[in-house]
């Protein structure tokens, strides 16, 4: 991979990251752990849900695995509107 391509990919990823992050709705959560189990980079999403804080971990890929797999609809993406037109 050439260096330009590498930086472009990284830039796309980081843009996606700052455009939105995963936000928990604590009252729905029963701490089952499916979110943490399915996180490809082992972020403890469940802990975020317990504490009611968004997943702003700089490593979060915003891949959506946790959002899609939560059986109780605890997690959603929230937009930051940083790049809003």
């Amino acid at each position, binding site marked *: 991979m050439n260096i330009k391509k590498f930086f472009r990919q990284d830039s796309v990823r980081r843009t996606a990251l700052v455009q939105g992050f995963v936000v928990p*709705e604590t*009252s*729905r*959560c*029963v*701490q*089952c*752990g*499916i979110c*943490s*189990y399915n996180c490809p980079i082992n972020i403890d999403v*469940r*802990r975020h849900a*317990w504490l009611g804080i968004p997943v702003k971990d700089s490593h979060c890929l915003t891949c959506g695995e946790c*959002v*899609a*797999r*939560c*059986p*109780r*609809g*605890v*997690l*959603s*993406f*929230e*937009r930051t509107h940083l790049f809003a037109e």
Partner: protein
Amino acid sequence: MQRYVIVGSGVAGISAIEALRETDRSGEITLIGDEVHNYYSRPGLAYYLTGELAEEYLFPLSRNDFKNLNLRHLQARVVSIDPLEHRLRLNTGETLNYDRLLIAVGASALSLNIPGNDLAGVVKLDNLEDARQIIRLARKARRAVVVGGGITALEIVEGLLARGVRTHFLLRGETYWSNVLDQVESGIVLHKLQEEGVQVHFNTEIEKILGNRGKVAGIQTRDGQRLACDILAYAIGVRPRIQLAQASGLKTNRGILVDNQLRTNASDVFAAGDVAEVYDPFSGRSVIDSLWGPARDQGRIAGKNMAGASAHYSKPIPFNVTRLANLTTMIIGTVGKGVDHDLVGIARGDSETWRQLPEAIAAQSDFDVNRLRILVGQRTLLGAIVMGDQSLSKALHHLIINKVDISAIRDRLLQAGAPLASLITDHYLKLREADARTLH
């Protein structure tokens, strides 16, 4: 230094300990529990059974988290409490003195009192050991019969199904969870189960469990029908574990009676979670429930008060999100039978508008069934069931929990063929815009 004792290692107990530690860094905390696995997500057992979750992920707290809470953990059973002396005795013979005590021992499954219930292969789903046993049995079993109702019965059914066991589900009547779901909702759930391969038997009551060499071999129904099976699972309800409190002279009804600070009638003794019976302003009487959220909230308030605060617990409108036959289902407020005549129930089908909420990115997919039922009061919405797509559930949750005035849309909601989803969504968005303007 204060000595705090927490009996019960479920979410209420853990939440109390976290609250205690926020206020009192140095007090001595002893956690006593008879659960060999300590604190884990009891609702998570459903997903452990289906294989969606590895066992080690059931535990929300790591060893390090426990270390940071700075507590002494005893795996033991409390056999007696002497509230006057502020002392309790364990099954190990040890006695402990406390300054403040929390009883958060939860509820346990009612047993199935029919002939044959002592056979190997008769299971329930009350704790992690039960889940492990079901998984062990399912490796060899070909057929299972499940009796009971509510969420737990379905958790067992779906767990067995996911593990390749042919499953029969016995219902005494013609509907499932009939005091919460209406006929249509029950029909949706049962139809989905049947599609997944579950054999649902209506108007069928189990009479006895048949055995062969000490193991389950089948069941016999009251009308004489026999079904061969290797597993008989039951989920017929839970009961708060109040025996210890009763024997110790604490006031109990169906649960341990507590005031709005979660204090029992004995000084310095608190109760929280499934074992506590709490005044419910919604219904005007004291109630028990078995929900994770309220157990956590009660634990937190009890913990604060044990550390010297005077925090009040106000029971919120009951709310749960669960999965019934693979359909995410939100249940909130008054939805069951026996409701006030001031209520008007509305039931409707699907709407694409549900998926047009700006902040909602659907967390579920492939739903082919949606169901919305709302209960409209004079000025507010009093309850709702949302099955399947959950795009609308956040708005409904907000409107119901905060008792938001819906007079402006009430008449339109009650019209035949009303576009419920867009009416509710528009009303919710207008409120949010108004809130945002106030903030700025």
